[in-house]
């Protein structure tokens, strides 16, 4: 019973997903009502996670409940709120997608807390299968193509992961993360096999985190998926993957860090660099944001490598800020049109939709890390941490990458503000629908507020970790 008490927020998330599915069935003709239900339910998730913030312990031997995990829950709740609100405004998408979004959120919540490979696999598949379904929900050819691609590659990486887990079980007879650590420490184990097992697991995880060279699925999936779904994959799923990476690397591999450390160093540098350079060449805004998501994954490797309370708070802060700005950017993409992703569609947007263009500019500048927006604060804490921990060269590579990224983020701004709209006769009149507008407003307000007054939030996070 006590274990159940520990996981009340997870139970709440699962319960709310079911409630959404059932009640939604009755009221699915009134989208605004679903909107209110969603907002209330997810606000509830936010509050429950907040209330259980300091309830720590290990549930069922599989989940570690700690303030870190609960803080990430808040990030997932924010990501879900933004994505679901935009989703509800897309009239051509069935309301059931919302259920998958909520189920995915449950998966993400479990993923960020697991310390057991069985739990890891279950949580990962809960998240992944929800996303596979979400991507292809519209049923058009493009959606289906993206969905199949995502599913095939995802299943492929899951196979690697399972293979690794199976090998590990054969070696240690346990599914717990800590068993790996003791396996390294104890003599007599077959180290070669152990490393093979962990490499398989590593490949599976890097795929989920869309790290180079396992990133190829990202732009294709983002392009095909509806904007809120792409936004959700870019934010919640990614932050969950890094929460997981942190616990894998701190619990499972603490005794032998050198090996993983070098590997992560290269993964980080490559991911940043490849993501940013590929984004430079992209003409589609959605694909550009996909590469930007890859690049940000590269930055997030840095705190994973550092470990300790400073970097956990960095992951939370960066994850939250990144979720706000990327979610906001995808919300604006939803307004401009899911199909009109070419950067040319953004020409002259400042003239036709000045406010929308301004808010997208805000999100992009924040993503580029230009002060005084939230993105700068998050990046600053991350890189200051890297300098402090002696990762000087990686930090400088990251900062240089920040300059490269400014180019492609600003290019969109150039198209919106400095070019005349192209004569697209069939271009629809743009209108931000109600819930989308709310999502954008929330994200924009938070991006600006956290840029100017990061103090309270940082204090709150630091106080808990």
């Amino acid at each position, binding site marked *: 019973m006590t274990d159940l008490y520990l996981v009340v927020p997870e139970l709440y998330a699962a319960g709310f997903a079911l409630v959404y599915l059932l009640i939604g069935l009755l009221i699915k003709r009134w989208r605004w009502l679903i909107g209110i239900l969603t907002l209330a339910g997810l606000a509830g998730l936010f509050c429950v996670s907040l209330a259980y913030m300091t309830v720590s312990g290990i549930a069922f031997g599989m989940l570690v409940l700690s303030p870190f995990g609960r803080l990430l829950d808040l990030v997932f709740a924010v990501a879900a709120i933004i994505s679901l609100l935009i989703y509800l405004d897309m009239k051509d998408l069935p309301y059931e997608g919302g259920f998958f979004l909520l189920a995915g959120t449950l998966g993400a919540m479990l993923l960020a807390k697991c310390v057991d490979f069985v739990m890891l696999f279950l949580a990962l598949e809960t998240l992944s299968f929800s996303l596979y379904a979400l991507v292809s929900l519209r049923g058009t050819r493009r959606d289906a193509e993206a969905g199949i691609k995502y599913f095939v590659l995802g299943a492929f990486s899951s196979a690697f992961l399972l293979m690794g887990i199976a090998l590990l079980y054969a070696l240690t007879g346990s599914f717990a993360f800590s068993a790996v650590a003791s396996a390294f420490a104890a003599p007599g184990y077959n180290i070669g096999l152990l490393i093979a097992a962990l490499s398989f697991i590593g490949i599976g995880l890097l795929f989920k985190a869309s790290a180079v060279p396992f990133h190829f699925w990202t732009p294709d999936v983002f392009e095909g998926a509806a904007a809120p779904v792409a936004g959700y994959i870019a934010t919640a799923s990614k932050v969950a993957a890094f929460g997981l990476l942190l616990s894998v690397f701190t619990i499972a591999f603490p005794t032998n860090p050198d090996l993983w450390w070098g590997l992560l160093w290269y993964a980080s540098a490559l991911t940043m660099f490849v993501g940013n350079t590929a984004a430079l060449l992209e003409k589609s805004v959605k694909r550009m944001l996909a590469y930007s998501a890859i690049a940000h994954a590269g930055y997030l490797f840095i705190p994973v490598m550092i470990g300790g309370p400073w970097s956990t708070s960095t992951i939370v802060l960066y994850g939250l800020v990144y979720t706000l700005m990327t979610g906001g950017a995808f919300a604006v993409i939803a307004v401009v049109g899911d199909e009109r992703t070419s950067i040319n569609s953004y020409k002259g947007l*400042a003239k036709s939709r*000045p406010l929308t263009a301004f808010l997208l500019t805000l999100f992009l*500048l924040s993503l580029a890390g*230009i*002060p*005084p927006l939230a993105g*700068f*604060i998050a990046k*600053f*804490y991350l*890189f*200051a941490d890297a*300098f*402090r921990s002696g990762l000087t060269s990686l*930090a*400088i590579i990251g*900062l*240089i990458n*920040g*300059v490269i990224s*400014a*180019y492609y983020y*600003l290019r969109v701004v*150039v198209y919106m*503000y*400095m070019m005349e709209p192209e004569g697209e006769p069939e271009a629809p009149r743009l209108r931000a629908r109600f819930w989308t507008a709310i999502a954008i407003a929330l994200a924009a307000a938070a991006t600006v507020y956290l840029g100017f007054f*990061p*103090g309270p939030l*940082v*204090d709150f996070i*630091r106080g808990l970790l």
Partner: protein
Amino acid sequence: MELLTAVILLPLAATVPVFFLPEKARRTLWTYAIVVSGIELLLSLGLLWWFDLGRAADFQFHGQAYWLPGINSSFHVGIDGMSLLLILLTTFLTFLGFLSSTRYIETKRKEYIISMLVMEAAMVGVFSALDALLFFVFWEAMLVPMYFLIGIWGHENKLYAAFKFILYTMAGSVLLLSAIIWLYIQFGTFDLIALTQATRGLPISAQEILFLAMTLAFAIKVPLFPFHTWLPHAHAEAPTAGSVLLAGVLLKMGVYGLLRFSFPMFPEAAKVFAPWLAVLALIGITYGALMTWVQTDLKRLIAYSSVAHLGFIVLGASSLNQWGLQGAMIQMVNHGLSTGGLFFIAGMLYERRHTRDLSAFGGLAKAVPRLSVLFGIIMLSSVGLPGLNGFVGEFLALVGAFKSNVIWAGVGATGIILAAVYLLTMFQKVVFSKLENEENARMKDLSLREMLVLSPLVLFIIWIGVYPQTFLRYTDPVSANIVQLVNPEIPAQVDETRVVSPETREVSHD
């Protein structure tokens, strides 16, 4: 709330109502912008009024507020004499910039006003930040509005110029930020005053690396040869007020960085690298002058002349004595006034003729006498004619250079001659040559509004030229401080400066 904080925040807060004003309400928008920047100017004059001249080297109007927890960074502001002059220059030029824009900017007025106001807040912030991280935030925050100013309202090649400007500066910022974070990790604080105390104990090798990292960022901004290639594009393509602020204020941020960070924080390294800076400055003076000579585009010409003029400022600063530093500080203000003025005039000519080509003009003296006279005065100030402000600054800078190295002064003096050559050639082409073009003959003379823009500039040009003491006494203790830090063993140097101190009230160039 403290006055200084108000000066920083007012323009920022004033952007909010602009969002709600209709784009069509042309008159309301401009009136609002001019009134806001006018109030801002008055507030900054309040700083001047309450500034304690007796403690001009100390930071006054302290304001401190909680900002970034856990890492000892706070919103800490304060100004000394040097900052005060630069803040006044900023608010003054922004006000005039708005006044000059009412006819020039015809599209996206709201965005223009917002960009200008954000710029103003960031520029004032840079000059008053006493926290290294806060300084960096303001330093970077100014990029985006400037980028918009160039990219939206600029001339033909605006996109290229805007990208070049922002990427160059951001590349420099990487080094600056790295250096700032390194200092923080070493000393656990971002506080400028504490850091300036602490860094002096660093070993020379560490000082050198940090000095180079910071100075490179500042040198790009100045811009020092060979990092100047972004400048002609940015200056030439920006709209009038953008060029004015770029030349008048933004370039000063680079020099300010040198004088606030590089030199006082790493005095040992400063002594090592000052000759190198001086040599680059001299190359910049000569190269800039020669490039200016052959320009046919009025704005590009003024832009290249900035490369030469900024060379004088850096030359003065890197001579590391009281004369040179005083020259550099007063020349920062001078250059803001004279080059700002030249860009205003280039903008007024462009509004009339829609060209910046020198050969399109000619004989303006007859057609537009008022404009020609003011143009003449501002041009001569830029040449460095005795009696006008440019002379004071360049003279002091050259005296400083002379005391450090005679050859520097010799090469620098040649630069003044070259400046006379290219500016007078330009002036002759534009104003005095034959009135051949019909369109020039029909050109309208200055309107009342345009007179209002130019005459305060001319007033200060003459004031500083005739009685520089009014302004020099604000920077005197600041430069004495820097000299003390870098050369503590030469107290005699400080005594010499009594020539420009309040007691003797002597004009410096006798």
